[in-house]
């Protein structure tokens, strides 16, 4: 009976002869972003035959994108709650400095595996703690997330600079870490990419298929309803911002592994890059809607643009112009769609 009525409903609901799944797919944000990504790849492949679509470029694009992808996964959760986290670059630096300082005092570049493991724990713990703290302040509802994390951005960077005197310390990463996670490969795939892919897959599943993900989406959609349903909204926000911090800590480990230094001054625009990727991927800044898959696509659009423009010999700075324009258009469309849906 159920199947019958569903079929009947589909027949009534489908306006013309357009199959149900086509209409449904067309409304998915990810699909449109994915079309743009494919179009870009095709364009560069045709514009620079044999040069763009090589294993080296693909691998390089993926490695460059790995850290942003990890940060983007956390940011997806945050933005879905109708929040924002501007502090991620600073938290990454703080976690890297905390881990780096420990490493320097326990063998420096030649430190052993035990130290490496402890450094990883430190980086993850510092990031999680900082994120959870920001989440706790956001959860009070007294200070908007924009301001909480803007304060966090300044404070975390300040502490990192105080601890190091503002200079990147030498010997922040063990060669063990660099040779494994940093440059190591399995079957030709860099560990960095594998790690980012695992993180993405796991938290994509968490968002789409678990109570944690469901509550995150619901809070962004209607926090009052969630509160009335007996879900502790504050605790969920602490967890979401804590997750963002955890992934910023993981980003710190990946950064140390790749570059061997803390790069204190090098992360001031991480937040903007990551937020751009998440929004390009169809996650709504107004909360309630979004997906990790979209963020993956959103991370790769700027990455493909940068590499592609270099390959075809155009100044790569056009990438910034293009992404900026696309970002504004993406939010404009999201806003329009929201309005029309509400009117319906």
């Amino acid at each position, binding site marked *: 009976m159920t199947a019958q009525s569903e079929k009947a409903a589909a027949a009534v609901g489908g306006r013309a002869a357009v199959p149900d799944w086509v209409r449904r797919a067309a409304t998915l944000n990810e699909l449109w972003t994915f079309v743009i990504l494919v179009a870009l790849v095709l364009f560069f492949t045709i514009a620079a035959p044999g040069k763009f679509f090589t294993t080296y470029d693909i691998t390089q694009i993926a490695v460059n994108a790995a850290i942003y992808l990890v940060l983007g996964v956390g940011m997806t959760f945050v933005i879905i709650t109708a929040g924002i986290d501007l502090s991620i670059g600073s938290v990454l630096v703080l976690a890297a400095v905390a881990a780096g300082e420990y490493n320097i005092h326990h063998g420096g570049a030649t430190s052993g595996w035990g130290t490496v493991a402890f450094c990883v724990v430190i980086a993850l713990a510092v990031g999680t703690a900082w994120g959870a703290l920001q989440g706790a302040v956001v959860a009070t509802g007294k200070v908007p997330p924009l301001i909480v994390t803007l304060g966090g951005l300044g404070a975390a960077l300040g502490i990192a600079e105080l601890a190091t005197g503002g200079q990147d310390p030498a010997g922040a990463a063990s060669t063990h870490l660099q040779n494994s996670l940093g440059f190591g490969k399995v079957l030709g795939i860099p560990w960095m990419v594998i790690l980012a892919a695992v993180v993405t897959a796991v938290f994509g599943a968490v968002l789409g298929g678990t109570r944690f993900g*469901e509550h995150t989406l619901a809070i962004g959609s209607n926090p009052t309803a969630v509160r009335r349903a007996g879900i502790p909204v504050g605790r969920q926000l602490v967890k979401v911002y804590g997750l963002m911090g955890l992934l910023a800590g993981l980003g710190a480990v990946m950064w140390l592994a790749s570059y061997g230094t803390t790069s204190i001054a090098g992360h001031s625009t991480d937040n903007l890059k990551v937020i751009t990727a998440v929004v390009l991927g169809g996650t709504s800044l107004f909360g*309630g809607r979004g997906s990790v898959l979209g963020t993956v696509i959103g991370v790769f659009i700027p990455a493909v643009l940068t590499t592609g423009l270099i390959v075809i010999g155009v100044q790569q700075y056009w990438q910034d112009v293009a992404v900026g324009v696309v970002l504004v258009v993406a939010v404009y469309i999201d806003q329009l769609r929201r309005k029309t849906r509400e009117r319906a």
Partner: protein
Amino acid sequence: MASAREPLLTAHGVVKRFGHVQALSGADFTAYPGEVVALIGDNGAGKSTLVNVLSGVLAPDAGEVRLDGAPVRFSGPMDAQRHGVETVYQDLSLAPDLDAAANLYLGREIVRGGLLGRIGVLDRPAMRREAVKAFAELGVELKDVTAAVTTLSGGQRQSVAVARAVAFAHKVIFMDEPTAALGVVQRARVLETVRRVADQGICVVLISHNMPEVLSVADRVEVLRLGRRVASYTAADTTIEELVGAMTGSLDEPNRTGEAEGAR
């Protein structure tokens, strides 16, 4: 179920102050299982405050609330829900971006068995199946329980909110102006649904401004004025004029049926 004359939910002498404003000054309320009781009153009569007290949102300053004859003091709406008392809010309290099934189970999600369930992995097929069943029981036709609630019509959204309450309430459902935002056809549908819910033995407390609607769907009507119950009627034996008179105080008549134990 208790016999029809055994009150399910009673309030006695409930007082609630907000600063200098006394919203409830010794309000009484009685509701029986399986009936639709309308709670009416002019703006500021204390309807919302009384409902908030009865549904656990507010703690009364004085007075007593009894559920099934036993005194209760809800620590919050969740506590009330655990006692089988649900509320359908006027704004519906739905997450518009989630689908109907997810809204039905928001905060009470069905998870998979075993380890997956332990880490909170949802059993979406089960939630959807149960949602279809729940809507069917209410006579509500939803084309697609997987469509975001924001894409549904006003009446359908209302039905989702009602279904959510019905799925978990086994005693009382409060409905705050459930038809205020609806068209004629949808209004009739929701009222039909209300009737059906009451026929399942649940008490439905309807807060409404719409007198014809009240008379058509309710079994009894309780009237609040200035923070007190001023009258209690059997819907079949009263008229709009009488209700309006009681609401505005132009018709100062004591409790008609005389069943109110709080009459003073």
